[in-house]
């Protein structure tokens, strides 16, 4: 048994095509990949919103003034 479809390289390479694991599962892998991508956006979006809401009330005027001086 081999996940890539070959258990030995005693083959004519002219007849070898794909050699990645789990051939035939490309569409489910794509679906997983797209969920991972969109999920990342969702997580980042929610976190940034929360963070900016907190941040707008965070800085005390003296420290903000110091930040402005740090060109």
């Amino acid at each position, binding site marked *: 048994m081999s996940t890539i479809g070959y258990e030995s390289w005693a083959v004519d*390479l*002219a007849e*070898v*095509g*794909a*050699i*990645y694991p789990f*051939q035939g599962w*490309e*569409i489910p*892998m*794509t679906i997983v*990949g*797209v969920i*991972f*991508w969109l999920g*990342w*956006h969702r997580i*980042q*979006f929610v976190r*940034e*919103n929360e*963070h*900016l809401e907190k*941040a*707008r*009330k*965070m*800085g005390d005027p003296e*420290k*903000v003034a*110091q*930040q*402005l001086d*740090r*060109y």
Partner: protein
Amino acid sequence: MDGNLNALTTVFVEFYYWVTVVFMFLIHVGFCMYEVGASRRRNHMHTLMKNVMVIPLVTVTFFFFGWWIYWAFPMFPFFGGLNHEMGNANLPWSETMGTNLQDRISGVFWAAFLLFSWTAASIVSGAVIERIRSSALWVHAVLIGSVWWIIDAAWGWHYGGWMVKYLGYHDAYASGVIHAIAGGYALGVIMVLGPRIGKFAADGTPRDIPPHNPWMLTIGIFLIYTGFWGFYAACNVPAISPEVIDGQITGTTWTATNIYLAPTSLSAITFNFLMSLSGGLMAAYVVSKGDAFWTFSGGLAGIITASAGNDLYHPIQAMIIAAIGVVFAYKLHYWVERKFKLDDAVGAVAVHGYAGFIGLVIAGFVLWGAPSSPYEGYAAINPLGNTIGAVIMFGVLGFLPAFIVAKIQSAMGVLRIPEEVELQGLDYAEHHAYEDAKAGIIEANKALLASKGTAAK
């Protein structure tokens, strides 16, 4: 790869593109340095993170659908349907989109285009520094990097694209397909986003917000020049026979070609890259009265202006055209800034958008009547076709979608950071613990120094 010669040719071509991809990575390094150099200290980490995360987001989406668009869209939707035969071979679930011994080039070729996608997104990133939400920019990065630019590439940067065939559109090194579209896109976003706090005085007079670190900015732009050189090589097919092109070229002489499979040479583009860089630098120095920011950017704008025709121009033509483009872009930048109160933080709209636009128009005149393609039935290069192409790139595929999406984001309140956060700086907001700890240790060290000084007396 049957036979030594065939193997050598295959390995040469895949290695050629692979090297260009590595060189092009420097474009992104340069953009990161440029943006950080141009931003103020209190926004460094946010500026850097915003541009770095463009890399994975555009990469995965370009794998999922960007590459398929390039192969499926050359005639779609105006002059035919989707090209399923070519498109299907480049879907993310195609067997050739992975480790496959029957296909040794797709991954490298995909990567060459992908690096252009990063560039398009990164150009937009520079214009919006210090006030856009990261989440908003990253949506725009995916749209420009994996949708809009690659549609324009299918139409106008593909040997079978409808703009090439019917308009005679010619844009060998991407004045329009990368730069005009990205500049137009950046304009659409900043028009909705608004200027940074303090950019304009109460009476509307623009204020300069100088880069905090001119050295970092200089190294950044030199890295962009270097990567751009790799980009030029990536735009060529390095060696191909007339038999493989299967067009109108007769004889058996192999040649390098541009993206349209029309003949050029590495020699030609090396002459023209350096002469247009020089023309741009010289013109920018004069027009900006030696301003470092604009002189360095002018070198880039010069190359961008001449890029549309740099496969065919004479080097002196490339130099003059570059100079014209730089003066145009510089003057237009300040006119737009004064007139419309727009804050293009790094001059991205000017350097990429205006220079790319005018470069396309000029190429239409200078190369008027030259064949746009080695295939029969294609329109020749002409001023109208290239001008229409410039409008499509800058306006239709660049400015318009950016403006619409930014308007939606603005209406939802998710485009711009709050004013309080902009004032205190994004790094303070995101890394306040780091900033507080740093401030604390500096204070402690100063106190220790002061007490030692007192003790010594």
